[in-house]
């Protein structure tokens, strides 16, 4: 997206960030389109909808309708909510099949109970974690969103959110409010060992406890994925991130040794001296 090291939600509120210029990328940048489509595909897969049945779905943060198009292609009907008029304008131009609503998910969803068979959201939920106005309280907004979503979903329906969490505190905040609203479920992480391909999907169940699907690539440690470079700027930055900006802390050293062991290289055993600070002349 724009700046290489900053997260979009630190730059401006979503209705400002997703202006006409940004919205244009979603209709023209083929790599962006490809990635969004892939994530939509995975989200629908995780929804585990009954086969061969057209469903009524909610797309939160539908934006320019890229994910919505995927839903339509899969034979479903959908309603999309987004806060950016510029993005919705692009969706209208692209003649999407779903019905669009201009709204703020943090204000709660305006639907009668039990209407939707499922909910998807691609790259949107992390926007709720930042307070863009003095009156905003992220936990309150998250809770208002999740509680209204919970009631809008039919019994047994699922909600799948692809998100870019900034850190583990943010993840905890999100999951705490979701659980408080009555959801069960958890995180599915695809390609956890690849910082480029790693994707987070929050899978929530409304009304029934389900089995959490397995993340892709959890067995294969070195799955190569191509063409993901463009998104690394907004990738989650957990304690360990490849690159020179990480401090050479004990955690980092232990992680590196683990990584080399997985690669089959010869590594010294971990002792109490591991990562001990050495004097400069060493």
């Amino acid at each position, binding site marked *: 997206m724009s700046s290489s090291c900053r997260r979009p939600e630190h730059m401006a509120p979503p209705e400002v960030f997703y202006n006409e210029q940004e919205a244009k990328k979603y209709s023209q940048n083929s790599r962006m389109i490809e990635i969004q489509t892939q994530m939509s595909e995975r989200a629908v897969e995780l929804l585990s909808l009954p086969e061969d*049945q*057209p469903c*009524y779905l909610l797309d939160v943060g539908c934006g320019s309708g890229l994910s919505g198009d995927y839903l339509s292609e899969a034979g479903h*009907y959908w*309603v999309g909510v987004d*806060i950016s008029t510029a993005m*919705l*304008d692009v969706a*209208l131009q692209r003649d999407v*099949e779903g*019905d*669009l*609503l*201009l*709204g*703020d998910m943090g*204000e*709660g*969803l*305006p*639907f*009668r109970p*039990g*209407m939707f068979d499922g909910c998807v959201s691609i790259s949107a939920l992390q926007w709720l974690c930042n307070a863009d106005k003095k*009156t905003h309280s992220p936990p309150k907004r998250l809770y208002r969103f999740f509680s*209204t979503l919970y009631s809008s979903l039919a019994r047994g329906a699922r909600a799948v959110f692809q998100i870019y969490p900034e850190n583990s505190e943010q993840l905890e905040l999100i999951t705490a409010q979701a659980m408080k609203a009555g959801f069960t479920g958890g995180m599915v992480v695809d390609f956890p060992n690849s910082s480029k391909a790693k994707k987070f999907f929050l899978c929530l169940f409304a009304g029934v406890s389900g089995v959490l699907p397995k993340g892709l690539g959890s067995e294969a440690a070195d799955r190569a994925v191509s063409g993901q470079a463009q998104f690394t700027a907004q990738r989650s930055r957990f304690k360990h991130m490849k690159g020179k900006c990480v401090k050479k802390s004990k955690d980092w050293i232990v992680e590196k040794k683990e990584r080399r062991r997985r690669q089959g290289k010869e590594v010294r055993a971990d002792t109490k001296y591991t990562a001990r600070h050495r004097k400069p002349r060493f």
Partner: protein
Amino acid sequence: MKLLTHNMLTSHVQGVTKGYPLIIKATEVKVNELEFNAQFVSRMIPKLEWKALIQAAEWLGQSQDLPSTPKPNYESVEDFLRKVHRILLEVEVVEGCLQCPESGREFPISNGVPNLLLIEDE
């Protein structure tokens, strides 16, 4: 905004208890053509608030002899399903507004997209 969506929408302003159904004041309506899917229409009928749907159709001048209650065994009556399909998915409000029946607050509709953004205190 399609009438299927309208049937689902309520006012989400805090403190409002009777925010359904939203009154439609349409200045521009259009009718599109959409592929008919009997399975979807049958599945949605039990979810609908039928009275609200009939009322909405009347406001838009699209009543077209829809019965006041859904027919029994509607799954097999294709004619009825097609009428419902038309009113739910093909009729669209392009310009106008939605009004909350309790507070009178209006949500404008522009280009077929209702603006549901709340102001600070709601």
